[in-house]
């Protein structure tokens, strides 16, 4: 049986998450690292990397579909607004069974704002344990 139904992942980015992610990804844009710089360019403070938030969406979809990375065929998202540090993000969506595999429709919401919308993941069904 293929997994279908609701997807939910809750994650609260701590105050150092953008620093770890900058090092891991190589994206050192100061809007993610420096509150003063971020305010100078009109942001409320340093903000999350959009691609970090997208990684949460990818994780939510993959975990719901069976947890194997090779299942994920594609993921597309739109970013809206800025993700803030220290406030819980809820990734939610649905996983549906299609002829050609699984499809997940997802959003990421923080403080009532959709910071990721129109998230669509296409996944292969899990084919038992790979050896």
């Amino acid at each position, binding site marked *: 049986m293929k997994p279908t139904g609701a997807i939910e992942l809750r994650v609260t980015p701590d105050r150092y*998450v953008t620093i770890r992610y900058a090092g*891991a990804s190589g*994206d050192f844009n100061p809007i993610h690292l420096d509150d003063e710089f971020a305010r100078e360019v009109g942001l409320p403070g340093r903000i999350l990397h959009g*691609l970090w938030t997208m990684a949460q969406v990818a994780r939510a979809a993959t975990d719901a579909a069976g947890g194997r990375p090779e299942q994920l065929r*594609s993921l*597309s998202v*739109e970013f809206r607004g800025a993700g803030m540090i220290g406030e819980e993000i809820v990734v939610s969506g649905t996983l549906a069974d299609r002829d050609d595999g699984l499809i997940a429709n997802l959003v990421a919401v923080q403080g009532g704002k959709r910071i990721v919308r129109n998230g669509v993941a296409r996944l292969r069904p899990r084919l038992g344990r790979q050896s």
Partner: protein
Amino acid sequence: MPLAVDKVGKTYPALSYAVGREKIREYAEAVGETNSLYLDLDAARAAGYEDLVAPPMFAVVYAGRAVWPALFDPELELNFAMLVHGAQEFHWERLVIAGDEIATEVSVARIEERRGLGIYVFESRSSNQRGEPVCIGTWTNIVRGVEA
């Protein structure tokens, strides 16, 4: 300032990236992955992989840096102060494993003005050391305050 629409189709030199085991672990930890295939060498080998598996979104590491020369290309005249990441798409063809060498080519897929916004879309195509396609990325950047 008119947008540099004549630069659609421009390509940038391929960038090669050597995928390290500890880099995969560092990335996986930074995004909160708990899947042992990304973190535990014994678990990855027990599951039939030669080494640690890169999470699919690790594409931002090997392909992201290949997009920078396009973002910083003076011919495109992107205004960084007004730049936001509008959308992102990845299509994965096969997994990346620690030890792989990933080559990524980037091209300008689309430049257009829409209601005062400059839309810059870059495409990245990544393949491994055997020439097999690994990942295609579509990177949509939006520049606010553009006037045609």
